[in-house]
């Protein structure tokens, strides 16, 4: 192979196998674009289906009364279960993130990060089984048991999200507070954490959005409930949105289907707006950290 150009004076049109290579290049580009469009299209179809079927079910009565005229007990139940789950997962998650960024050496941090990622990948039905054995079997179903399962789902999300934003807090802040002769935990409480609140809020909101839609653990933990009245006691089974959607879909009742779609729309809107809000929050706190 000489590799040289046969005739440098020839017109600058494609020569050799350039045409074939260009064709392949175009094909790759179109395939990639099509895949991206497909992803957006799938989401659009899902959202369109939910909106078109769910929108007509939603009115004031739907969100304020119990079944069979509305789904208020399920909304309240999901809110309570997720709130308790977050109350459990948030402090532990933030502490784990603090350990990772402030205290752990690289030998401890690596395996712990991997553990969190694995935890994030555990199928939720497994967590449901775990909590069933732990808190439900030989006792009774409870919203609290559901909260524990959801807390396990939220924990890695909050820990990893918080850790990412804690890493953005410049080291010069830690040095500054160290050099003032103030103990590390005080620096963390009053300098590091406040700079990271935006990111912690974001991670929490995303975790809440994820937990609100989890169905499998709640089938084990909180599925035998009365959808007609609001329950506020977390130590008995609480009505909740995902399990009730599942139950309605199992029945052959067209009216129930409409209710299921209505609740799906509420759930999807909640997740959508929570994610958008979280993104805005994160953007703001990142800007604030990088400008300092």
């Amino acid at each position: 192979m000489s590799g040289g150009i046969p005739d440098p004076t020839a017109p600058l049109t494609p020569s050799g196998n350039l045409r074939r290579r260009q064709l392949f290049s175009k094909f790759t580009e179109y395939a990639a674009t099509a895949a991206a469009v497909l992803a957006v299209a799938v989401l659009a179809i899902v959202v369109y289906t939910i909106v078109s079927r769910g929108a007509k079910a939603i009115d004031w009565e739907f969100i304020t009364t119990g079944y069979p005229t509305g789904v208020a007990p399920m909304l309240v139940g999901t809110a309570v279960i997720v709130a308790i789950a977050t109350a459990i997962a948030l402090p532990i998650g933030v502490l784990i993130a603090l350990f990772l960024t402030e205290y752990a050496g690289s030998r401890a941090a690596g395996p712990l990060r991997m553990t969190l990622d694995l935890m994030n990948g555990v199928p939720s039905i497994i967590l449901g089984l775990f909590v069933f054995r732990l808190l439900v079997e030989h006792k009774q179903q409870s919203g609290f048991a559901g909260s524990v399962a959801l807390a396990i789902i939220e924990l890695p999300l909050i820990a990893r999200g918080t850790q990412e934003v804690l890493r953005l807090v410049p080291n010069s802040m830690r040095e500054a507070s160290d050099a003032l002769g103030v103990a590390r935990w005080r620096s963390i409480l009053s300098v590091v954490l406040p700079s990271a609140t935006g990111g912690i809020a974001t991670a929490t909101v995303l975790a809440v959005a994820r937990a609100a839609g989890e169905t499998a653990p709640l089938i084990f933990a909180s599925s035998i409930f009365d959808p007609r009245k609001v329950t506020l006691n977390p130590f008995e089974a609480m009505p909740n949105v995902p399990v009730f959607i599942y139950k309605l879909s199992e029945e052959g009742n067209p009216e129930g289907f409409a209710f299921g779609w209505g609740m799906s729309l509420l759930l999807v809107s909640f997740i959508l707006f929570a994610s958008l809000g979280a993104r805005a929050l994160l953007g703001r706190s990142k800007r604030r950290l990088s400008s300092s």
Partner: protein
Amino acid sequence: MTSGLDSSQGQNQPVPARVRIQSGLPSAEQNGTATAATGAAGAEQHGFAPEVVFDSQDISIFYGAKRALAGVSLRIRRGQITALIGPSGCGKTTFLRSLNRMNDSVPGFRIDGQILYHGHDIYGSNVDQVEVRRRIGMVFQKPNPFPKSIFDNVAWAPRNLGLKKGLHDRVEKALRGAALWDEVKDRLKDSALGLSGGQQQRLCIARAIAIEPDVLLLDEPASALDPIATGAIEDLMHSLKGRFTIVIVTHNMQQAARVADRTAFFSLASVEGEPKPIGTLIEFDDTTTIFGAPRDPRTRDYVTGRFG
């Protein structure tokens, strides 16, 4: 003081592989001691040498297997400004940061030799590093105010150290001490990040002196600032002199000449048992001597601008 010295030297003897600086000149340790004894200039001229604050004895610093500093012995005296000058990478900042144990968090950091602070071993086994930094404050190269208000920046450390009585007066005094009060007194609630670089650096100095430390370590405090802000920082150092013992690392020789009583010249030199030159102390003397009549030819070459 001397008894502390003796006992420490006794402890030092078993340390293996002690390295001497390879040069035909008197070692820096002898040099510094000689100067103090003969009273060549400065405060010593008046027959009075202030108390020794830091007594560094044959300090070597390692980061992992890499040696960053070899055989530094010098004494820093109360109320004086001591400047550390020298080319980049010769260990000035490393030495400064070892004076208040800011290097402790660097992975692989290890120190040989002894640094006595008022006779106490800074790296002694019962020494708390937080307490060390409480007494020996530090200002960094890049201004690093907290993302809080101007007032809260200065009040932060006193609050956390339980000095809450007369907090407002304390903050005002610190800001006046840092020559910043008149510029910020009407906007104490504003974010510190809105200040100019020079103002931020003076705020960091105010933050450091608000807890009334014994010593201030300044790591190239003016290197990121424009000439006017640099001038303000230098004026400030003159006004802080006497109240605090100040150790300043600077790249700027003129700055050292303008502000310091004593100047230590660090540079790379070949050291026994090391393949490559290591940062070490070449000469430590009164600033006028270092810039006017240095003994070591390397110091002369550096201060006359022949290298570095």
